[in-house]
């Protein structure tokens, strides 16, 4: 009896958390999955909506606007993560040294990350303003032509990329710097004695040793980049045309403007699956690394 009670105790303690998780997470997700099989208008109650099976999903793949938006999202994620990785790791390599005032400098570098996305969007929108924005005014004072930052399709994509890079490079920077500073000092010294130049030290020693951290960082950023919404919403609201309409924005418009809740739910599910694949990739990468480390340790102990 007592043994039985002991076995159940942990679940008793877990119960409140599970309950909250179920209500706050599983319920909406289940709701969304169910809704994605319905032709559902916001004026109907969910029970009144017609069941349409997989039609929402099949429609998605012939919907040019959705495919365009998926393309924008993929392009956006690929570009920002690449640029942010290069800049963030580069900055970390540059600032990994003992200089006077470095602590303050590091704090300044990570400030953008702490600003709310809406504020970032507004700030950049003002800076990108065609006539009163600081960017075009600066160009004008230098005698150059103004740039249609947010009003031209090509430029608008670049502009939102710049804003995202500005906000999220610090994230990569901070993690890379932490990784750099935890690298074994003596291996660096050994490499210097072995004759490595600064660049060789970076490419042959530092970057390979940082790789596990960099992979996880890139995956985290990738997941985040797929979900970006506020900054772009405020800056361009997806325009001009569909040039900056990332998936999250498309979903929100499908639900609120086009009033097709079922269709929006199907899109959300697809995005969720995409993110799930990335998350699982990260999870399994971690698992594989752990297993490898464990195997190596076991072998090394055997070798003693």
């Amino acid at each position, binding site marked *: 009896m007592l043994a039985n009670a002991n076995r159940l105790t942990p679940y008793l303690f877990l119960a409140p958390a599970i309950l909250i998780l179920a209500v706050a997470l599983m319920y909406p997700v289940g709701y969304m999955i169910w809704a994605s099989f319905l032709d559902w208008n916001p004026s109907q109650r969910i029970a009144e909506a017609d069941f349409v099976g997989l039609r929402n999903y099949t429609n998605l793949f012939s919907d040019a606007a959705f495919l365009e938006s998926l393309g924008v999202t993929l392009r956006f994620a690929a570009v920002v993560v690449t640029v942010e990785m290069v800049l963030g790791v580069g900055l970390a390599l540059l600032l990994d040294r003992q200089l006077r005032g470095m602590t303050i400098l590091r704090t300044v570098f990570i400030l953008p990350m702490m600003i709310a996305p809406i504020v970032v969007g507004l700030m950049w929108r003002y800076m990108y303003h065609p006539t009163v924005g600081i960017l075009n005014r600066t160009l004008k004072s230098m005698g150059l032509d103004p740039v249609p930052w947010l009003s031209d399709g090509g430029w608008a994509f670049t502009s939102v990329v710049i804003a995202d890079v500005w906000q999220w490079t610090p994230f990569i920077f901070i993690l890379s710097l932490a990784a750099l500073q935890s690298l074994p000092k003596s291996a660096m010294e*050994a490499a210097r004695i072995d004759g490595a130049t600064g660049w060789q030290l970076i490419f042959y020693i530092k970057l390979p040793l940082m790789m596990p951290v960099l992979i996880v960082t890139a995956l985290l950023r990738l997941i985040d980049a797929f979900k970006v919404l506020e900054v772009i919403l405020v800056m361009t609201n997806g325009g001009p045309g569909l040039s900056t309409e990332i998936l999250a924005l498309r979903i929100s418009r499908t639900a609120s403007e086009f009033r097709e809740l079922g269709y929006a739910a199907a899109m959300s599910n697809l995005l969720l699956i995409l993110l799930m694949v990335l998350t699982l990739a990260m999870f399994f990468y971690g698992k594989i690394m752990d297993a490898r480390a464990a195997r190596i340790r076991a072998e090394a102990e055997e070798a003693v």
Partner: protein
Amino acid sequence: MPEIVFDSVEKSYGPTRVLEPFDLHLADSEFTVLVGPSGCGKSTTLRILAGLETLSGGEITFDGNPISHLDPKARDIAMVFQDYALYPHMNIAKNMSFALRLKKVAKSEIDERVQRTADLLNIGHLLDRKPAELSGGQRQRVAMGRAMVRDAGTFLFDEPLSNLDAKLRAKMRTELAEMRNTIDKNMVYVTHDQVEAMTLGDRIVVMANGVIQQQGTPEDLFKSPVNKFVAGFIGSPTMNFLDGDLTDVGGTMTVAGDGFSLPLSDALAARLRTHGGKAVTLGLRPSSITLEETAGAAIDLRVIVAEYLGAQSVLVTRCGTEDVLVEANSATPIAPGTIRTFGVLTDELMVFDRTSGLRI
């Protein structure tokens, strides 16, 4: 193999002076050991020589050419680190060949040199493993091999054996001693272990508190230490020190203190004649005290503990309030707690000035 000269080299970190200005001359193909307790500046000296630390004053020359402005890679040195500092992401072959690959040596030559060195060190079968897959002793050999494969003019060792267990350490020490005779290079070796220093060094440099106390052959340091620190640091078990006063007892110079009164040999007495009445510290090595009370001057010691080591035992005894170690043949059973008369070989006594610590 360059002749290495330190010319008034000094080192400070901000206001903290870690190395007082010193001169040091390392002859061609010499095995020099820097030895001293933690924080004495021996590793800093080595790192300055390697170019991993800058010097705050003075100059180092290789064959007369100043090198303190040169990068480590321009100094033609190889170094073995205390924690081995292997590259964790490269296999052993890649670890060992890193320097050669950077120098763009032909691949066939690299392979040949790595294989030859690895075979020499008995790690030939480990070449495609990663460092994490090796035991401590194997990693140590790889670190050694990585330095040897370079064929540099000067080898630096920063406490290379201190992370090994006692048995492996002794084995590697022997191998190093053997290697020393076959490799015709400058070697500078840092350790805090005086046994390593004594067994490996052609020349030993004893350091304490950022100052070189004495340098010389192992025998020099053992037989004629310049001060109490060197006398206490070199030799195992360590030298016993007893405070006493120098007095003339019926024409014989004698050191008398709490629980002992030992006459000095004629040679020593002649040197000390002018120091009569002075406060001194007497140094006796554990090997200078024997169980035969007639072998020299008599001293009464209370035996506290007998540390049995096999053929020999180390007796921890007490003279007054001071501990005195005695090296004795285990054949004679000694019961702890007894007071016994021992013989002191007075020829081997040393006398130090109690205030300055210098040997008189």
